[in-house]
């Protein structure tokens, strides 16, 4: 459902719908990749803590802000509707 996003290993993101490009940090890449692969936003903190050396509270806080930012800049807006992925 996020098939308008082309995200490479390097953290380079191309939004096919808008033509805009972005760079993401490694954890940012990890999280967005999970979303693109269909992960439920609820599960992101768990996934992040499993792979990265971070406390759950910090992970939750950072993910919340990250997702807010993704939707704020329009990356999560889907092609065919106004529906958005939110935390």
């Amino acid at each position, binding site marked *: 459902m996020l098939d308008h996003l082309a995200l*490479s290993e*390097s*953290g*380079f993101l*191309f939004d096919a719908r808008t033509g805009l*490009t972005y*760079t993401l*940090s490694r954890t940012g890449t990890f999280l967005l990749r999970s979303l693109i692969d269909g992960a439920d936003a609820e599960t992101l903190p768990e996934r992040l803590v499993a792979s990265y050396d971070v406390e759950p509270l910090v992970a939750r806080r950072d993910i919340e802000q990250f997702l807010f930012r993704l939707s704020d800049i329009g990356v999560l807006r889907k092609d065919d509707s106004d529906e958005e992925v939110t935390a």
Partner: protein
Amino acid sequence: MSLTIAVTGMNATDNPGPGVAVIRAIRDACPDCTIVGLAYETLDPGNYMPGVADHAYLLPYPSVGVAALSERLLAIHALTPIDVLIPTLDAELPIWVRLQDFLADRGIATFLPDADTLALRNKDRLHELADLGVSVPDSVVLTDPTNIPKIADELGYPCVVKGRFYDAYVAQTAHDVAHWFHKLANAWGLPVIIQKFVPGTEFDVVCVGDGEGGLIGSVAMRKMQLTDKGKAWGGVTVRDRKLDAFVRDTIAALSWRGPCELEVMRGDDGGLYLIEINPRFPAWVYLSAGAGRNLPWAAVELALGRPVAPMPPAPAGVMFLRHSLDQILPLSDFEALTVRGEIHRAPVPEPAAAPSPPAPVATTATLTTFPTEFPA
């Protein structure tokens, strides 16, 4: 072993940097040289043009300072060892000039003026060239608008009001001068330079000086077509003994070392006046190769300490017309430059074959300080 030559100024935009032209000239003379293109912007078209750079790298803006710029260059040098560096942009020159010895110690040759000679070409010091015997229009350097009334006596009207770095306006009255003075002082700071207006025709001359007063070669051009910024979009080489002599004398007076572009006015009074010196190759320098006087290649050879015989004056009537074209490029090239700061179209030399670490990705240094005098 083939040479590796690094060139800056890959901004082949509608107000182009000279890098692509310099590279094309070098390629004409040395088809198997390896070319490293050094760019300050991801979107500089020269990074993506086929047949231009074998390796394209991003540099931090000169505004980050000497330390950061040299550090980055050395990292590039470790990956693709550079024999000669030809910088082409005004804003970066003071830094490379300062780093000449530092670079030479690390095996990177340059052929540039020293800091004092470079400073002499600053607009507010151009009048000092008169002391060296170079004909320049009379001028006064203004720091205080209360002196504007004196211009009528000292220079007369009309006169040209010039900003410290850029911009020039013709003023007919003291009132005009006051207007432009404040505008230019706000844009570029003080001083503001007031130059006597010389009615006549402008010629641009690309030169390479040997640093000991000798002129290695020069090509004079008259603009035939201008962009809306007044830059050459087409031109033709000209030949004039008096102009040749003027150029030779100017380079001799300055003992200019390396490339430069002289802007010369032939006044309606028949006199020649030096209006400005740009301390680098101009964007139209490929014309020099076209006219059989490959000045970029001469600069490479001089940097390497090879003897270069002075070239006879270039023939008149060689014309150039610039054109623009739309280059199709893979998004992955853009990604490579954006994320890693480098594109490789040729193998990276042996010792450093390991891919550079993908790590720290950065946004640009302070946007608010984006150089007003950059790119050239």
